[in-house]
């Protein structure tokens, strides 16, 4: 077994210009280093402010293997704390979400904390007189995640004290979140309808690559799309489709469609697939909604917002956004060969209920553990995770449309089937992994 921890050159050698080594997907040591470096030094999606509307509301969520709490403060701010009692390490809450009232109280020895983590009280206070408690971490309350950014209600954290600023890290790809929020005439989204959660026995990067893989639908999803086409046969192209058909049939589009949709990459692994159009572009028009959008944004701006309908925008390494339908996927790595994939739906304030229906319907049809579209994806990811153990070839090919000139550029607009959108993720990976974790 290769050791990587103390050999940065070995880690760097895993990513070549046009291919990557299988240890990226298989090695538990690499996975542990990713948690310490990549996921600690990057801005990772934690949750949405609408999950914690009232003071004392919390959501518990692990990031990079560390238990965190997103908490709404009395002054309306969203803070992020470590979910670990300063005393002995008990998790302060074990529900996924809830309201803690005006303070946190550890169930083990009743140490209490304000909502911002500041220490409130401990039982048998006199027993600590003359001790070093107050001088050390355990006497100073809950540890706080210092680098939190609430961007239009999307909450991101950077666990490490070093690393790029939020704006430098994401740059232009934040337009994907803007577009999603701007699709609400009131500029306000609420997480709604629950989160579909999938356990997939593959490496997280495989899932993230596939979000930008436009060449797989024709072969991977053939069984689902051919069945849908056969059921819909005989209908004129102008016949109104049930929402499910409107959402599934475009998966059967050909290579040319996916190539022409175009893609764009940005520094740090981010991308937009479908800069020209996507499988989401031809959903039925909703005149009433368009009128509300024009009233809110003006005709020109409303048209611009509604015409931008990419397939997927990736905010590397944890989030994939669809402005239409209003849905996101969150990638939560659990182990080298195990990943949690969440599909969230949003309700856009001021938009018709149909938009929310579309988000839920799309997530249910395509990202549910029972999805007939996802079954073939998941099977193939899990197959790759096994197949990579084979002898003979230790590399994964990402050669399609490689051009040496791309190495010197950061923002590039290209054809939709260019594997640059994946190579760009791995270049960001290599860069993040070369940075030592903060102590």
């Amino acid at each position, binding site marked *: 077994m290769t050791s990587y921890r103390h050999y940065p050159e070995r880690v760097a050698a895993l990513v070549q210009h046009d291919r990557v080594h299988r240890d990226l997907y298989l090695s538990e040591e690499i996975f542990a280093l990713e948690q310490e470096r990549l996921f600690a030094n990057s801005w990772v999606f934690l949750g949405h402010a609408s999950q914690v509307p009232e003071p004392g509301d919390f959501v518990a969520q692990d990031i990079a293997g560390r238990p965190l709490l997103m908490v709404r403060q009395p002054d309306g701010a969203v803070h992020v704390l470590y979910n670990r009692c300063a005393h002995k390490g008990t998790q302060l809450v074990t529900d996924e979400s809830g309201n803690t009232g005006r303070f946190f109280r550890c169930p083990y020895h009743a140490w209490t904390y304000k909502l911002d983590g500041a220490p409130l009280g401990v039982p048998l206070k006199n027993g600590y007189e003359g001790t070093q408690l107050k001088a050390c971490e355990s006497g100073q309350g809950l540890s706080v995640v210092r680098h939190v950014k609430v961007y239009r209600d999307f909450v991101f954290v950077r666990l490490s004290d070093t690393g790029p600023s939020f704006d430098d890290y994401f740059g232009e790809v934040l337009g994907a979140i803007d577009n999603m929020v701007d699709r609400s005439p009131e500029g306000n989204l609420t997480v709604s309808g629950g989160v579909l959660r999938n*356990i*997939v026995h593959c490496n997280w990067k495989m899932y993230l690559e596939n979000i930008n893989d436009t060449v797989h639908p024709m072969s*991977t999803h053939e069984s689902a799309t051919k069945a849908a086409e056969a*059921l819909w046969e005989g209908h004129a192209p102008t016949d109104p489709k049930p929402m*499910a058909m409107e959402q599934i049939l475009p998966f059967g589009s050909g290579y040319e469609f996916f190539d022409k949709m175009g893609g764009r990459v940005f520094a740090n692994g981010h991308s937009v697939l479908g800069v020209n159009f996507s499988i989401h572009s031809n959903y039925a028009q909703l005149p009433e909604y368009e009128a509300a959008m024009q009233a809110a944004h003006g005709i020109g701006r409303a048209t611009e917002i509604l015409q931008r309908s990419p397939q997927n925008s990736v905010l590397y390494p944890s989030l994939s956004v669809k402005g239409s339908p209003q849905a996101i996927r969150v990638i939560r790595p659990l182990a080298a060969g195990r990943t949690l994939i969440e599909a969230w739906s949003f309700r856009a304030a001021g938009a018709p209920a149909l938009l929310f229906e579309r988000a839920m319907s799309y*997530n249910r049809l395509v990202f549910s553990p*029972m999805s007939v579209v996802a*079954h*073939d994806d*998941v099977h193939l990811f899990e197959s790759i995770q096994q197949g990579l153990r084979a002898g003979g070839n230790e590399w994964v090919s990402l050669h399609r449309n490689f051009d040496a000139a791309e190495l010197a550029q950061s923002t590039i607009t290209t054809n939709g089937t260019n594997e640059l959108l994946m190579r760009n993720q791995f270049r960001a990976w290599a860069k993040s992994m070369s940075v030592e974790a903060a102590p």
Partner: protein
Amino acid sequence: MTVPRDFAAHEAALLDERRFDDWLALFADDGHYWVPLLGAAQADPFSHNSLAYEDRLLLQLRVERLKSPRAHSQHPASHSQHVLQPSRIEHENADEARLRTPFLYVEARGESQILLSGTARHHLVRTPAGWRIREKRIDLLNATRALPAIQLFI
């Protein structure tokens, strides 16, 4: 079949024998198959999402896909076993019946299998051809937890 009490066992046997066309024929034209994401706590399929909420068109799509040799995830094929408690008839009149059937469900494929448990709730309507499903609702225990792929019909 005239006794609704036996319906759930008959239906489950069709699924476990992979007789999906025969199974689909048990649904009324307006029939739905529903697996709420909140399990028994969920009020309706519209205000909250579901693991599955399918009309006959989508169920047909599932059944047709399973026949395709290019249904990659069915190599090897999945097989199911429903282990049912006796159905309790919650309501019955001349036109309709409601059944409640606690179950264990095992879906096996290759070297792995998953185990789910919950309660199936059948809303049946009487037709000249016998009882038909207006809604089969499956309330999973702990439906909100992260799940692996469930490929057949619970």
